């Protein structure tokens, strides 16, 4: 009994130490999820934040959820970035890249769009200002399905 308890506590504390990122998309069923992988050292990521904030602020009412997954190995670098460019959306931390591996991230930044049934409908690598409008149109079309 004590051994089991000990093992459970050890397991729980180990998972905290390793800070494995967890993402359960099931709880967002019914909403459109924009999942974005970013890091502080990635310049296009910096350019994408104002746009993602805008999407978050304008389309949350319509059912959009924006989640940023930070891939910095050092939390301090992410914190410093967010201090100068705050995120209005939810940020989770994946310093070991487990989520990035799971979602097979192929470039920085990477965006994954899931429709209201939780199905992955679009993957996009990179961010360019000139693509922002068409990206928004696409998100709005998924929201209205």
């Amino acid at each position, binding site marked *: 009994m004590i051994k089991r308890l000990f093992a459970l506590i050890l397991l729980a504390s180990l998972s905290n130490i390793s800070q494995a990122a967890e993402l359960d998309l099931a709880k967002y069923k019914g909403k459109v999820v924009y999942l974005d992988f970013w890091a502080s*050292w990635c310049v296009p990521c910096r350019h994408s934040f104002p746009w993602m904030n805008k999407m978050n602020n304008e389309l949350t009412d319509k059912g959009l959820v924006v989640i940023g997954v930070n891939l910095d190995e050092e939390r301090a670098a992410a914190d410093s970035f967010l201090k100068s460019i705050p995120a209005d959306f939810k940020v989770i931390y994946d310093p070991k890249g487990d989520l990035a591996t799971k979602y097979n991230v192929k470039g*920085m930044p990477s965006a994954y769009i899931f429709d209201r049934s939780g199905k992955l409908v679009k993957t996009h690598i990179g961010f360019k200002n000139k693509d922002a409008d068409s990206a928004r149109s696409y998100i709005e079309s998924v929201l209205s399905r």
Partner: protein
Amino acid sequence: MRYIFIVLTVLSLSACSQWGVKPWERSVLAKPEMALDNAPLTSALDDHIYFSKEASSGGRGFGGGGCGCN
């Protein structure tokens, strides 16, 4: 001499099949000082001096490394 150099380089390059990093592992490579030519004005000034004082010039290449973004 020149052929040994070519062979050695090609051999060492063919060993690079396991080289590389994941796209999110480039924080160090993204630093400006890790660019292959991180001080281009200095390189240009140096190249100009050595071109004037010696019989060889150029050779330096371009591109690669860095954050690998977009």
